[in-house]
């Protein structure tokens, strides 16, 4: 909302107050809660001053140019001027050498320099209004009043310069959507009286009765409807002051009648509508709901189908206006209009808001109606506006005012009680009853009788109609705090009992994991929690996968962001692709992202039926970081592999203290069918997230629950995302980890006697797995066997094609004695015998 400083000054005199400085006024407005978002100064170009044309003669060599001398009162300048209206004796705006003339309509400006025009010296420029931002006209120079003193900077010349403030008015303050409303705030701030506008009404015309009749049918939508008639009006251009006032805040002039209705709206906040009386059929104005099938062409030229929910202003034959929102073409005031029917009404805020939304329309009027205008001012504004129209457009105001009210219409000021003690307690400072009352009365409230509320002394306040937002004591307390300036309220820490709240387990776990993965060399990402079915489809999930049942948004920003993600993997994989395209091939990312699963069976009056699950997602691509860069040890670097990710998963499970087993392969469609694994946690209770994703039956039957998958990305998925090189990914349920997280480790005694080791080389088929062979070892039955370590998997010289050699080291240790060779050999023999039962294992 824009307000003009010159316009505000009609209602409040800021002379001698700090508010006289436009910058200080801007800060004052912001401190009042009317935040200034922009300030446009017009009519103040530095270097432009008032001056007088001393002489003016035709240019000897150019018909259209004049050669003048101009004085600013102290110096005289030769000036060549091209304006047809320049003449000696005029007071003009003179741009001196060095003045910077602003550009028009976004064009660059220019600087005034000494020049020679067809042989004549010119040391400045006499300005037209468009050159100094005062208007559009370039027809001639701007002539100032004869009494203007010479040499005044432009911004000091009375009435020329102005400041338009762009205010951010919050929805609770419709009263500040007009100039008198803003002026009221400023007047209160600077302790100045507010001058309300007024114009004496003379009802010299014929009686209104017989000219028009009002039928208020829809009292739910319109609680008050006031009509006035002005006869014999001449519709035409507006007077200069009116055009200028509207233009000062960027409004276009239309004609004198429409401009006056707009002016009064911007002055008092009361919307009104002027009808061509003679185009109202049947001399009837009916406020009613629309009927099915009715149509209305609004002023914006759109032919609208109306619904039965719409409230109309109709005549005997049909719709004229979409009430409170926009007028219709047919009843509009035009140049041929001579008699006017003037509507000043109070429409129900929610009704106007709904019909504006329904038709995608917002107007200056609807904006104010839906926020709530002054219910007590309707008749008064009707009289004032009628008087203004008669004054500026000719004609006479018909005798009498039609006034239809619903019984529910608020007809007198609301009374709200304030306990000053309560205000002091909630604000947190001593104020006193008198100061509370002073502040509230400065914005138009009237203090009345004292009484008791909740056993405390209270003051009654009459609330003016324009402050419909002040309904409760709390509203008054806010006004007291606001008018005193929040910055004067003390800064005090509350004294509350000591208390400690540990972080919730989920937060502790996710913090631990994030720091762990960071230390492991991964970068944490943050993806927008929007996705698309198209992106999801790239994972190739089967229809029965819970991730396929995603939640779509009703009003998405774009097709790419049309659903809530059931997995962050597509976003993370897209991030890897983005980085690969930017020469960042080693993307190692993780994110604890929220996934949203559709659970319609859990929908209730208060629950949305959507399960939100934190999922840890990891993606690895490019090379695994070389731990000894520049050492030349090639064995330490190279593309990321399955076992890098597996090690990472094992480590993070250990860090989280989770008792879990890795099984392989995973069956997830997005993973490689062989080079993948699942995380199976031992736990009693199955967390909901894991249950949704992996099902409950299977988990329960094995006494362990699947809480995540990891592995090499399925090559089909990799190609869908246009990814290069090896890419690995994992997705792990945080609630699964949390449910499985183990207790604090308990100390186990370790022997002080030295350990003995034995090595074993086994030759097996390529298809045999380490896990399988490990499973054949009698680890539990040989009590002194402490550890079986795989040293190497060897293929090459000495190992036949299709086979591999596994080198194991067995560590033996006794808690209470040093083992003898014989004891160790016996134990190892037991292991060997067990392995020998497997015909596929050959001892080397």
């Amino acid at each position, binding site marked *: 909302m824009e307000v003009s400083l010159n316009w505000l000054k009609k209602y409040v005199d800021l002379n001698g107050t700090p508010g006289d400085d436009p910058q200080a006024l801007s800060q004052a407005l*912001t401190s*009042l*809660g009317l935040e200034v978002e922009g300030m446009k100064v017009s009519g103040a170009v530095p270097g432009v001053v008032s001056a007088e044309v001393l002489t003016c003669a035709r240019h000897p060599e150019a018909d259209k140019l004049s050669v003048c001398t101009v004085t600013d009162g102290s110096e005289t300048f030769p000036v060549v001027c091209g304006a047809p209206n320049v003449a000696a004796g005029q007071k003009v705006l003179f741009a001196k050498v060095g003045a910077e003339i602003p550009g028009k309509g976004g064009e660059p400006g220019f600087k005034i320099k000494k020049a020679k025009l067809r042989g004549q010296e010119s040391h400045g420029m006499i300005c037209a209004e468009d050159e100094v931002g005062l208007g559009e006209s370039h027809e001639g120079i701007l002539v100032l009043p004869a009494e203007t003193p010479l040499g005044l900077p432009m911004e000091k010349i009375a009435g020329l310069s102005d400041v338009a403030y762009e205010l951010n008015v*919050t*929805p*609770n303050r419709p009263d500040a959507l007009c100039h008198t409303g803003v002026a009221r705030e400023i007047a209160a701030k600077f302790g100045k009286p507010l001058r309300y506008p007024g114009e004496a009404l003379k009802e010299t015309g014929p009686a209104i009765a017989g000219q028009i009749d009002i039928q208020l049918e829809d009292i739910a939508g319109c609680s008050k409807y006031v009509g006035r008639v002005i006869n014999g009006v001449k519709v035409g251009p507006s007077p200069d002051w009116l055009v200028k006032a509207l233009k000062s805040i960027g409004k276009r002039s239309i004609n004198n009648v429409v401009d006056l209705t707009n002016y009064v709206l911007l002055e008092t906040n009361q919307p009104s509508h002027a009808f061509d009386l003679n185009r109202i059929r049947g001399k009837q104005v009916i406020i009613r709901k629309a009927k099915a099938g009715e149509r209305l062409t609004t002023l914006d030229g759109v032919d609208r189908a109306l619904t039965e929910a719409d409230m109309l202003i109709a005549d005997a034959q049909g719709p004229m206006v979409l009430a409170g929102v926009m007028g219709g073409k047919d009843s509009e005031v035009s140049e041929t209009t001579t008699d006017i029917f003037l509507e000043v009404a109070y429409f129900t*805020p929610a009704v106007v808001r*709904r019909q504006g939304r329904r038709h995608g329309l917002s107007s200056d009027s609807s904006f104010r109606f839906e926020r709530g205008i002054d219910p007590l001012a309707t008749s008064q504004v009707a009289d004032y506006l009628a008087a203004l129209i008669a004054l500026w457009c000719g004609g006479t105001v018909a005798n009498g005012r039609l006034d239809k009210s619903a019984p529910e219409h608020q007809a007198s000021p609301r009374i709200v009680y304030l306990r000053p003690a309560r205000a002091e*307690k*909630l*604000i*947190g*400072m001593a104020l006193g009853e008198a100061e509370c009352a002073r502040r509230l009365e400065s914005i138009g409230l009237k203090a009345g009788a004292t009484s008791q509320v909740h056993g405390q002394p209270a003051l009654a306040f009459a609330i003016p109609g324009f402050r419909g937002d002040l309904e*409760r004591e709390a*509203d008054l307390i*806010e006004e007291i705090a*606001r008018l005193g300036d*929040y*910055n004067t*309220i*003390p*800064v005090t820490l*509350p004294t*509350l*009992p000591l208390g400690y*709240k540990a*972080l919730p387990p989920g*937060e502790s776990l996710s913090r631990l994991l*994030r720091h762990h993965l*960071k*230390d492991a*060399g*991964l*970068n*944490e*990402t*943050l993806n*927008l*929690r*929007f996705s698309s079915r198209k992106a999801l489809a790239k994972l190739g999930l089967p229809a029965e996968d819970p991730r396929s049942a995603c*939640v779509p*948004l*009703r*009003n998405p*920003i774009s097709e790419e962001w049309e659903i*809530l993600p059931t997995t962050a993997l597509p976003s993370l994989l897209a*991030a890897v692709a*983005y*980085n690969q395209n*930017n020469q*960042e091939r080693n993307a190692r*990312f993780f994110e604890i992202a*929220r996934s949203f699963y559709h659970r319609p069976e859990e929908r209730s009056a*208060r629950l*949305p039926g*959507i399960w*939100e699950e934190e999922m840890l997602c990891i993606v690895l691509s490019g090379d695994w*970081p070389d*731990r000894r860069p*520049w050492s030349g040890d090639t064995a330490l670097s190279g593309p990321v592999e399955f076992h890098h990710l597996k090690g990472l998963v094992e480590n993070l499970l250990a860090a989280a203290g989770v008792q879990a087993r890795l099984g392989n392969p995973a069956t997830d469609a997005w993973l490689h069918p062989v080079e993948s694994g699942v995380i199976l946690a031992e736990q009693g209770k199955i967390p909901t997230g894991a249950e949704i994703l992996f099902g409950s039956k299977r988990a329960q039957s094995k006494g362990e629950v699947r809480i995540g998958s990891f592995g090499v990305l399925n090559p089909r998925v990799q190609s869908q995302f246009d990814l290069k090189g090896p890419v690995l990914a994992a997705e792990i349920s945080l609630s699964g980890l949390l449910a499985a997280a183990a207790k604090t480790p308990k100390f186990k005694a370790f022997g002080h006697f030295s350990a003995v080791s034995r090595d074993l080389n086994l030759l097996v088929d390529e298809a045999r797995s380490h896990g399988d062979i490990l499973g054949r070892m009698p680890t539990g039955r040989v009590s002194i066997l402490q550890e079986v370590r795989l040293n190497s998997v060897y293929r090459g010289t000495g190992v036949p094609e299709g086979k591999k050699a596994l080198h194991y080291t067995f560590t033996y240790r006794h808690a209470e004695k040093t083992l003898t060779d014989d004891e160790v050999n016996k134990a190892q023999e037991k292991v060997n015998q067990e392995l020998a039962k497997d015909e596929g294992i050959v001892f080397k």
Partner: protein
Amino acid sequence: MQLIQDIRVRLDAEMQSLQAKLAAGEKGLSKVFEDAKIRYQGKKGDISGLLRSMGTLPAEQRPDFGKLVNELRDYAEGLFDSMQQGIKEADIAGSLAGSTLDATLPGYRIPQGSLHPMSQVREEIISFFQGLGFELAAGPEVDNDWYNFEALNIPPDHPSRDMHDTFYVDDQVVLRTHTSNVQAHYMETHPGQPIRIIAPGFVYRVDNDATHSPMFQQVECLVVDKDISFAHLKGTLFVWARHMFGDKTTMRFRPSYFPFTEPSAEMDVSCYFCGGQGHNNGQPCRTCKTTGWIEIGGCGSVDPNVFGKLGWDPEEYSGFAFGFGIDRITMLKYGIPDISHLTRNDNRFLKQF
């Protein structure tokens, strides 16, 4: 006796010569030294020989002889100890001087990743409020209209809904537009208990341009007790602002409007790039756009209607709430110029933090 004296002279001469070689920087003296030590102190060495020969002496000479041999033994031991120390020291000095390591080569670092700058700021904020005794609370990101709007005194068809460009799942279900929904959930489930919560979380608005992201992170803070005032709100924000933006930070409160607080305010802090001056060394400050102030967030006292909707008695309880954007504070803290960096996941961005 002469024998003892001879051995002693020989030992002195040998050690002096060794000392001289050591002083001259000769290498490989350890072996020479060890050999010499064995020759004197070893089982078959000279000193042991003397002790063995004691049996051949007349009994009356034995005590004196023994005493002299012991003296020699102690003397030799002292000599050898000091010699050994000298050789060891010379060895260490030699090895130190002989190193050719290029210490300017980069260290073998265990490769480190990074935490997203927003999660770092989030943790910092949580830690601060945890220190004040606040509890971390959370709420759903997809929520019922009731918790996001109605319980917070934002009825349907209210113009203040225009302040929220809401994503809808359906008529009743929205993506939360602010973390204030946590207030509603928490007050509903903790009736009549003093409340001190901090609730960071992602929120959503239909907005996407250079300064707005459709998903951003807010922190909500709520304190409810008997006798909580607006001054307490200012006090709490003040200690936080000084922690976050430095000891010289000042605050400014401007009246504003949120349906769930009253009085409502916007809080600004003095720009910590220019110290609230609006300019740095004569250059206009780009962070605060020369205003000297940075907008941080909205706050206010809990509106009585919110208490009422959630079953609390506003006559008995009062409280304050504030909320601010983690994105914004992150961008300020690290000087990130464009909000889209935060969710683009460019490795060149992520690696910096």
